[in-house]
């Protein structure tokens, strides 16, 4: 949830040329020094905890690097060969893509629907908005633990409810079969994130000027025509941002599956990040292989983000 930021807005002078801003009483060099001083904490974080580890992960991916023995020398293609020939490599990618597609479609449709529903600020709608938003204040891990108990065979309130509704006589095992585990996790994610995307799209909706709608109403447009002709096109930037966040977030799913299913049943819910974790820590202790898989994921995500940004840019024009 903290990744609500935007494409880089930087359109300043090239980095090598200090801006020509006139600074009375202070030399340009002195001002530059002062700027660096204020930016120093940030620069230290970026240098030591971001750039250095990115370089290290590249180096590790080409080494025989074990958890307890450390670096055992270069082994270039070996980690990549082992990772791609792992029996869970393809299945984890396919599962992650399937999960991403389902979660994204549901969250976008629901987020937009809810945003349209609570758009006006009457008292009842403000209450509704808050009720839908409260789950998004919870951590994903807390929400997953909460649903873990909600789905437990012993104490689940869903089974009595389903029996009362007459849907089923027996107990449903919410995490017991591969498809049940997938859809149960999707339900958790929709509950946790629907408010988040509702708010994001609501902000977009409120930036559409009201007189555009007024003009459409005077022209006698139906709700559907207004929605198709005004709301959707003008909401495109917000939808694109929500889409990027949702796709990226879902591709990196970990907490929810780690807590709810631990990759089961029958290894059916192993996501790509879970596979990285398993390679590095869960008994395998092969940091080199985990790094190799990380590099593949990193490359794929940069590619996907670049494509999405490109798509955004061309749509803007």
């Amino acid at each position, binding site marked *: *949830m*903290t990744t*609500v*930021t*935007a*494409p*880089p807005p*930087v359109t*300043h*002078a090239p*980095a090598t040329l*200090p801006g020509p801003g006139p600074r009375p009483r202070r030399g*340009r060099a002195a*001002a530059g020094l*002062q*700027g*660096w*001083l204020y*930016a120093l*904490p*940030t*620069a230290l*974080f970026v240098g030591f905890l971001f*750039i250095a*580890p990115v370089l290290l*992960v590249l180096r590790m991916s080409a080494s025989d*690097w074990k958890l307890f023995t450390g670096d055992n020398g270069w082994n270039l293609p070996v980690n990549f060969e082992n990772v791609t020939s792992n029996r869970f490599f393809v299945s984890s990618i396919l599962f992650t893509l399937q999960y991403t597609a389902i979660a994204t479609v549901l969250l976008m449709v629901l987020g937009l629907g809810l945003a349209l*529903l609570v758009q006006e600020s009457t008292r009842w709608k403000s209450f*509704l908005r808050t009720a*839908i*938003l*409260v*789950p998004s*204040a*919870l*951590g*994903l*891990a*807390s929400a997953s*633990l*909460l649903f873990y*108990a*909600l789905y437990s065979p012993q*104490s689940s309130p869903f089974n009595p409810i389903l029996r009362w509704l007459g849907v089923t006589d027996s107990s449903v095992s919410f995490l017991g079969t591969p498809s049940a585990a997938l859809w149960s996790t999707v339900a958790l994610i929709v*509950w946790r994130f629907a*408010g988040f995307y509702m*708010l994001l799209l609501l902000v977009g909706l409120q930036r559409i000027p009201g*007189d555009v709608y007024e003009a459409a109403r005077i022209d006698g447009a139906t709700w559907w025509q207004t929605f198709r002709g005004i709301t959707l096109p003008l909401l495109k930037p*917000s939808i694109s*941002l929500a889409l990027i966040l949702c796709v990226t977030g879902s591709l*990196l799913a*970990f907490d929810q599956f*780690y807590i709810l299913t631990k990759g089961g049943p029958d290894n059916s819910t192993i996501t790509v990040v879970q596979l*990285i*974790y398993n390679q590095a820590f869960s008994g395998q202790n092969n*940091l080199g292989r985990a*790094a190799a898989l*990380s590099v593949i994921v990193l490359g794929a*995500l940069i590619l996907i*983000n670049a494509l999405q940004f490109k798509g955004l840019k061309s749509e803007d024009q």
Partner: protein
Amino acid sequence: MATPTRAVEREARPRLTAGLILGRTPYYVSTGALAVIFLFPLLWSAVASVSPQAGSAQTEGFGFGNYRTLAGYQAGIGQYLLNSAFTSLLTVALTLICSFFGGYAFARFDFPGKNILFLSVLAILMVPYATLLIPLYVMLNAVGLQDSLVGLSLVLTLFQLPFSIFMMRISFESVPKEIEEAARVDGAGTFAALVRVLLPAVKPALITVGLFAFLAAWNDFIAPLILISSSDKLPLPLAIANLRQQVMGVIDYGATEAGVVVLALPCIVLFLLLQRHYVNGFMSGALKG
């Protein structure tokens, strides 16, 4: 507002009539059901945490038995709460320092490498969290900060930087330069002007940044999962997740629910208190989208 009179006419509220109330009933019923669906898991969790549960160590009736089980769990809930509080507050402090000074530097100064540094901060968003944790584990290990709450806070701060710096930069840019210059004419140095004049001006943005940093650090799961190995240094979410490790095939769902309440309560209270800032965070975040 081309036709103001007309707009007023259209927006005039209709009187409440019996027909209107009947017509609105399905609307209230369905939206009410929606609110119930979203609130139900939270309410159920609160009720379940004080109820006797199948498979729970608690045998009495309604009461705080599940919380007592939780309190006595391994190193004790107090220790885990302390770990979480320390990590979250240190992360908030580091995030505020970086984004306050960094945002000021990016908004007000031109220095060589400025744009490269700013793009690097934004690039943190491009790199998946989990892929950085493997090398970070190795690096923190090398300097003795692996299995340390300080090391964990440093990592959590890093991932707060893109949103926080972006937000603070916008916030500083929206403060007119004349205000600082006036302070300087009155004899204040740059730093004094920053603290005495600009700090109050960007306070709402700082609250938003701090709120998001707190929620993220308090709730994070995968960073401590990888970076913390001693069981007495675990933050709360991991300690509660460990409750699921079955003892003789039995999972204590009652204590898990109590743990969820302890985890969620500060977040929900903070959210309700600072809802305005939470929403504003989205506004400035989405502004450029």
